[in-house]
């Protein structure tokens, strides 16, 4: 059942924030809305949450048409980037809020709050005020609060956006584990492609109010459907008229078919990875203009096997179907 979005459109004045959005999110999944700033992720999430009404189209949550239903009646959980804590209430009161609004019996509220605080590992913090929690703890409180009402859908808008890198990574892993336990259909917004690929089981890539591609992290990474997705999801380097991932460039010491001579102008080692910057002797394509250096990514083993050093003359070419996987290349400026 999950979430169904049919032809949703949203404009702000003359600006089109969402254009003909069609999307179906499987129930029980963890879906990421990924896209650059201003691509309409928050707008779409708000439409799901009932905080914004679409100009056209309809939204179904768990099989129910909720397009004109106010947020109060949608039975969703919403988690905000900046926690949106009820600052004058204790952590336990925050979590209890949704249940109290629903007039749940007191004993039951207490039990459920205890359960949720344990789930988010805040059982010892129930009596504190949100201001006395760290950012990560506050966001876990917000999550418990949203989950308290047994929502049919959990919506998270950049839930880790306000946290520092380390806490963010911890919380990210933790969210995935939590999702495995709770299994509520979840959609989270992020502009961090690593976060999306790592946490989600389905990634929806958005750009300028449209959906560019929907797929598993593997599909999105290995088979980007458009030039935009290709460039947004991972690093891209140019080889003549082709655009490809730095690790899909093959380096050899001798000429091979389709390879091109060049010189290593920079060699950087980052842990187990080696990055090369290769300036080609001539442009392998016919686009004209200056050809930018080709970026290459190798494992240290590969690099050592070839005994690569800076200023070495080498040959490079796009890797052909390495390891049984089609190498994805796109023509420069090919568009969608």
């Amino acid at each position: 059942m999950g979430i169904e979005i049919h032809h949703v459109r949203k404009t702000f004045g003359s600006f089109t924030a969402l254009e003909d959005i069609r999307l179906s999110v499987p129930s029980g999944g963890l879906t990421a809305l990924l896209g650059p700033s201003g691509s309409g992720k928050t707008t779409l999430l708000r439409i799901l949450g009932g905080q914004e009404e679409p100009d056209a189209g309809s939204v179904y949550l768990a099989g129910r048409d909720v397009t004109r239903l106010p947020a109060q009646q949608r039975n969703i959980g919403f988690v905000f980037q900046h926690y949106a804590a009820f600052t004058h209430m204790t952590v336990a009161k925050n979590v209890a809020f949704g249940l109290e609004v629903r007039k749940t019996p007191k004993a039951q509220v207490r039990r459920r709050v205890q359960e949720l605080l344990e789930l988010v590992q805040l059982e010892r913090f129930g009596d504190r005020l949100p201001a006395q929690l760290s950012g990560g703890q506050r966001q876990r409180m917000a999550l418990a609060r949203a989950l308290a009402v047994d929502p049919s859908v959990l919506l998270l808008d950049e839930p880790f956006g306000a946290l520092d890198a380390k806490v963010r990574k911890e919380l990210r892993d933790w969210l995935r584990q939590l999702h495995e336990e709770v299994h509520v259909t979840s959609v989270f917004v992020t502009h961090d492609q690593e976060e999306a690929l790592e946490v989600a089981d389905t990634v929806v890539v958005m750009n300028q109010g449209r959906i560019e591609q929907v797929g598993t992290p593997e599909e999105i990474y290995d088979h980007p459907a458009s030039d935009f997705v290709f460039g947004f999801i991972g690093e891209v380097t140019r080889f003549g008229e082709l655009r490809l991932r730095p690790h899909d460039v093959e380096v050899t010491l001798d000429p091979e078919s389709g390879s091109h001579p060049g010189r290593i102008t920079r060699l950087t080692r980052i842990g187990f990875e080696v990055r090369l910057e290769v300036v080609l002797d001539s442009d392998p394509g016919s686009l004209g203009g200056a050809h930018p250096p080709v970026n290459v990514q190798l494992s240290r083993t590969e690099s050592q096997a070839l005994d690569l050093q800076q200023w070495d003359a080498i040959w490079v070419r796009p890797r052909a179907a390495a390891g049984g996987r089609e190498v994805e290349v796109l023509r420069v400026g090919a568009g969608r």
Partner: protein
Amino acid sequence: MPTRALNNPASATAGIPFSPGRTRSKRRPRSRRRTTLTRPAGLALGISVLWFSLLVMIPLALLLISSVEDGWSTFWDTLTNVQTAHAIRLTLVSALAATAVNLVMGLLIAWVLVRDRFPGRWLIELMIDIPFALPSLVAGLVLLSLYGPESPLGINVLGTPASVFLALLFVTLPFVVRTVQPVLGELDRDVERAAHSLGASRATTVRRIILPALTPALAAGATLCFARGVGEFGALVILSGNRPNISEGAPMRIQSYIEVDNTAAAATVAVLLLATALTATLLVEVLTSQERHR
């Protein structure tokens, strides 16, 4: 397992910012250094205290002394004098009523100014401060033109007890608006969205989320309102007609006692007004801080 880091009590408490809440400071161990004063801070404190003494404390103390300098019986007689007692009652009741009305209206106006966009908003924004900016005698005249004997509305409050209430209502109008407005403007809209998503109706959200957040500002506004109301003189002079036992307010009693050179009685009324205003301030402070830490 990544959860372990979150489970670890040390790491869980490490990042908690210390909150300088009132209840917290009570728990701070007493044996530690009692002050945080550095030398420049000490100097600043010294100057502040001196300044405060010259301007506020000493005059207040002298006022207190002069209220009882003719003995406690004069003090008591003044307060039980029928005319004075009536004036004090009228002032306090009117100030309370004006504060109550202002709490509601002020909140409403602040809400409209912060949340709504409409033509002429800037005009209201500008006009709010007029009652405060006007010399209060002028305020009295302004009111008189609409609610006086020549009222185009046919409402004449001149010389009635209602005139006191009306005058106070007018001069205290900006206080609640101006204290609530910035706080309301700063309120995170996501907090309301969160409440809605949890199933709270608009009314519930206002009652359980927005009002508690505004309580300190409302309290501050109400206190200012009441204090100003109790002391208002100029507007009353014009509008109330100072009819003894009918429309005479307490500040007028002070004035007339001074005119007959009865300083002790004047000081007595002043002390009572002062004590009431102070008590109100304290009460509000205590109530709202309890609310905040419940």
